[in-house]
């Protein structure tokens, strides 16, 4: 029995997408970054400083720093027609304001988007509330950006 090509490519896309997500989520859990207290203790240089987050970032960035140029040397990705990476180089107001705002929310909760997603299965009310408002904020900001910055 031969599967139609479109169905086959959709299934491969799904399988590889799930695999990448599992690896990413597994990394967040193993590294301790799903624990908001560990993130906050890294940011708390005046208190009981926990340098773990620097090790997570170093491990991840060494991989991308070495691997990105190697992979981008290919003519195209395995399951997409071309590489589509951000191209902007200017430092504009939305970038600065957005990073500022994100930093405040991250510091106050110990959650950034990855750990929030991976923690949903922990069923804590704080996680649900954070994730719901994060999605609402993303949706609102994306709508605003589409209508005002393009």
């Amino acid at each position, binding site marked *: 029995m031969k599967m139609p090509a479109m169905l086959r490519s959709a299934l491969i896309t799904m399988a590889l997408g799930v695999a990448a997500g599992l*690896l*990413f989520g597994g990394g967040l859990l193993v*590294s301790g970054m799903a624990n908001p207290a560990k993130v906050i203790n890294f940011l708390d240089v005046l208190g009981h400083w926990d340098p*773990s987050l620097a090790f997570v970032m170093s491990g991840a960035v060494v991989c991308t720093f070495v691997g990105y140029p190697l992979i981008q040397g290919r003519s195209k990705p395995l399951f997409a027609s071309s590489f589509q990476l951000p191209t902007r180089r200017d430092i504009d107001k939305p970038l600065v304001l957005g990073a500022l*705002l*994100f930093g*405040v*929310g991250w510091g106050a909760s110990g959650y950034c988007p990855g750990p929030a997603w991976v923690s949903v299965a922990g069923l804590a*009310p704080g996680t649900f509330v954070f994730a719901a408002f994060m999605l609402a904020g993303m949706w609102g900001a994306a709508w605003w950006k589409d209508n005002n910055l393009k």
Partner: protein
Amino acid sequence: MLPSTLTEFTPYASLIGGIMIGLSALLVLLVFGRVAGISGITTQGLLSPVSGDSLWRVAFLLGLVSAPWFLTKIGQDQWGLEYLATLPVSTELMGMSLAGLAVGVGTVLGSGCTSGHGVCGLGRRSGRSLVAVVIFMITAALTVAVLRHLV
């Protein structure tokens, strides 16, 4: 205001976990030709999907959400569901909703979060990402300093 919970410094586990995150980002680039930024994947996968290009993002999020269950399934419960249930998540729901809103608006406005600007952007040697990382690291540290030591 921010309660203090002691955590143990875990250099090896954190380094290994970090490498797993980096390898996942490389897999996304190799297979789909995209950056693995969670805020971008969420926005473009769920909130403003581009037809034909959101399937891998939805699948990625599915994998991300099921990671604790998967680790439990393969016998690694020290990182799985049981572990997740022990983590100290804030019960101040008003604070968590404001923080979630700030993270949502901030990552879309600033075009990235810890993964998009940090893990992927720094690896791409992006000046914009370096600026973003420095800014959010400083404001996050200041926020913790204010909430934990001043208020």
